[in-house]
Structures are given as C-alpha cells and as structure tokens.
C-alpha cells in the first residue's frame, strides 16, 4: 500500500471521529489529538478502526507512535511490511 493511500485512510477515519474538522489540513508533526480535539474514547475508536481497516494489530504500548501523522505513517508502513 502506498503512503498516499494510507494517508487517505487515516484522513477518512479521523473525519469519522471528528466530523467537523478537516484532518487533511494537519501538518506532519502536529499533535493529532490536540489539533482535532479528540478525547481518549475517540482516540481508541480511531485506533480500533485503523487496525481493522488495515488489518494490523496496534498494541497499546505503541500508541505513543501514533501521535502525529509523520510518526503514524512510519509506524503503519513498518507494521504493514
């Protein structure tokens, strides 16, 4: 899967938990949760949806690597390959 495809999926899932925001306006190193005002419940929903959509397991100890788009994309590529 190409990075652009993953990014599109991430945008779509973020939009689901934070419908009134525009996830595509996030910069790569911006804190996703802070910028989109996502609480811990919605953060978990996002991780669950991401894991289901991409078919990768995301252990809780790795949540720290999902804080901004840059780290998240690196992490997901690693998990996918």
């Amino acid at each position, binding site marked *: 899967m190409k990075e652009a495809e993953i990014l*599109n999926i991430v*945008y*779509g899932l973020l*939009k*689901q938990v*934070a*419908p*009134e925001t525009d996830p*595509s306006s996030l910069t790569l190193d911006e804190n996703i*949760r*802070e910028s989109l*005002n996502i*609480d*811990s*419940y919605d*953060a*978990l929903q996002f*991780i*669950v949806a991401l*894991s289901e959509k991409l078919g990768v*397991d*995301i*252990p*809780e*100890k790795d949540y720290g690597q999902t804080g901004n788009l840059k780290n998240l994309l690196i992490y997901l590529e690693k998990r996918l390959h």
Partner: protein
Amino acid sequence: MIAFKMPSLGADMEAGTLVEWRKSVGDQISHGDIIADVETQKGLIEIEVFDDGIIERFMVEEGAKVPVGTVLAMIRPVDEKPQKLEVSEAPEEIKKKSVEQAHQTNAKRLKITPLAKRMATDNKIDYGKLKGTGPEGEIVKKDVEKAIEELAVSGTSPKVSPIEKQPIPSSTSQINVPSQKSIRAAVAAAMTKSKREIPHYYLEKKIDMSKSLDWLRKTNEDRPIQKRLLSAVLFIKAVASSIEEVPEINGVWEDELVIKNEINIGFVLSLRGGGIIVPAIKNADLKSIDEIMEWLNEIIPRARAFKLRSSDLSEATITLTSIGEGGADKVFGIIYPPQIAIIGLGNVIDEAIVENGMVGIRPVLHATLAGDHRATDGLVGSRFLDALNKNLQNPEEL
C-alpha cells in the same frame, strides 16, 4: 389508575415538548417501553414508562410544551382485580374507537405526526408516498427515518471515499441535534441553580497511579484491540467501590439528605460542538469492569448523536467528571442538583512523590470532591477520597 407525568431529565429541565406519542390509547405497555418522544433543551429524548398497564387516555396532545410533572397519560394497571373486569369491556370500546379512527384515516387519507411531518419536510421527502407503521397506519418518525436512510443509500455512490465527500449527516440526527444555544441554556440553568443554592466545599487528594496504570497496561496487553479498557472504566469502578464504603456521599438533597441505595454514577461527556451531557451508569457497583466498558461503548455514540432515553438521564446519584489525557491537572466540579457531590479527576501527570523518606517520580492523579455542605461535612468527603485512593492502589480487586 396511574398518572404518567412529564419526567424531569435533570436539574436543568423545566419543561418538555411532547413531540410524538409512540403508543396508542388501549395499548398494553410494560416497564421500560418507550411511550413518547419529548423534545428538551438537550435534544429529543425517548421517554420510558415504569409501570405495566394499559394506556387509558392521553392528557397532552402532540406538539404541546408542558412543565415537568404535568400528567401526560393515564395508565390503568393490569394487576388490579376490579379493573380486570373492565378490561373485558375495554377492548370493545377501543375497537370502536379504532374503527372510528380508521374511518377518519380513510377520510383524511393521511395520518402523520407533527414530528414526522417536520422531518419529512426538512428532508424534502414526499410523505404522501410513505407507508405509516404507527397507530392506525399513521406515519411516524421511524417511517421518515427509514425513507431518509433509503434516500441516503440510493443517493450516494459507495465508491466515493469519505475524504472526498463529507459523510452525509443523517437527517434524523440533524433533527435530534439541539441548537448550541439551547445546550448552553441547559448547562447555564443547572449550574446557576447549583451555585445559587448549594454551599460547596472542596477537597483534593493526590493519588499515585503507578499500580492502576500497570494493571491497566497488563490487562490490555492480553486483549484484542476491540476489548481494551480505557482508564475511565477503572475510575468509574473505583468511585463505585468507594461509595460502597462511604455511602453518605451518594444521594440527593430534598430539604434533607436522602442517601440513595442505588449507585448511579452520572458520567460527564463533552459534546464536540461544546456543552456537556451527563448520562448515568446504573448500579455501577454491581457491574464488572467489562460491563462498564460496554456501557461506555454503547452510551458515548448515542449521547453524541443525542439519542438518549429518559432513563439514561435521570436517576444519577453522584457525578464523575474526568478531564482525560492531556487536559488540565485538576478539576473542581459544580454539583449537579439535587445531587450532593461531584468527583473531579484531572489529567494523570508525572510528579515527585515522597515515600518512606525517598523522592520518586510517579504518575499522579489529582482527585477532587465538591460536596454539598448542607448534606455532608468535609470529613465525609475526605473519607471518600481516602477510599478512592485505597481502591486505586488495589486495581486487581475492583
């Protein structure tokens, strides 16, 4: 005969608009059945009945705004013996009435509730073509919702990615969504009443969260992602267990302290557009950690879509507000009347803690309690926070 009244869905509610009857005169109803939709400042709420019986008569028409406590319907209990004799006659009466109404339906050709009509009009649905499933074939909210869904499905290409096209907001949720102004007004009313009437006292305790967080981490390690627990679950359970130890903190003020036996914890949820909504988890002390997580998974989406039932919003005996990760370190709450306490949990932060003469860095939770000084003294609140601390040091026992 039981008088079924407009329920109070929290201190902020003074009146409600009966938008749609979901049952008809003559219908048999039982505890937990949804009898009507009522519009409040916090959206459209499904109103449940708490008795078993037969609806004898409606006292309020659809569309009417009435104060809390107004009799909405008369319900004849089924278990009353003398009434049973009447029951045998009643069906005739009901039948006659239904026949009459059926004639009327034919004459008018179309029966639609005001809510359904408004929803259909707002969503440009030709309700003349809809098939009503309500009493006597009346078109009700559910029928319009179905039509809207069908329209949404047929009108959207499944291939469009959610990013390119914004998800079509379900129009049913649109109609449920109260305005920002009315949510603010509801919060304002409750909080003003609280600060005007309740002499608050405030307490705070620092709680070392090392053991709780370790337990949570280990528990979640063994779980599939869908079954993982949020720390909020542990907080709710710990609060419930602490109330069992200090029951005086759980109750309402009705010119005197009324301690409640049921532990129903109102859990503050913030709404994305601003404002809060506080559904209650009933009998939290009797629920397992997993049951509490299931409750959160069920209630949060429903609360945010303003699809709550009357029982979700009434009956809380205490409130818990948890700031969550990344937020403020402490929160001092305002009591939700007529309750007598609110517990506030801040963001867990690393702090220096002195233990056995040694300084260590630990994850720390600042737990606060605002109590109603008419009902309890600081000592009771303090015992509660001590119990909370103790419970969070022994998470495996919760």
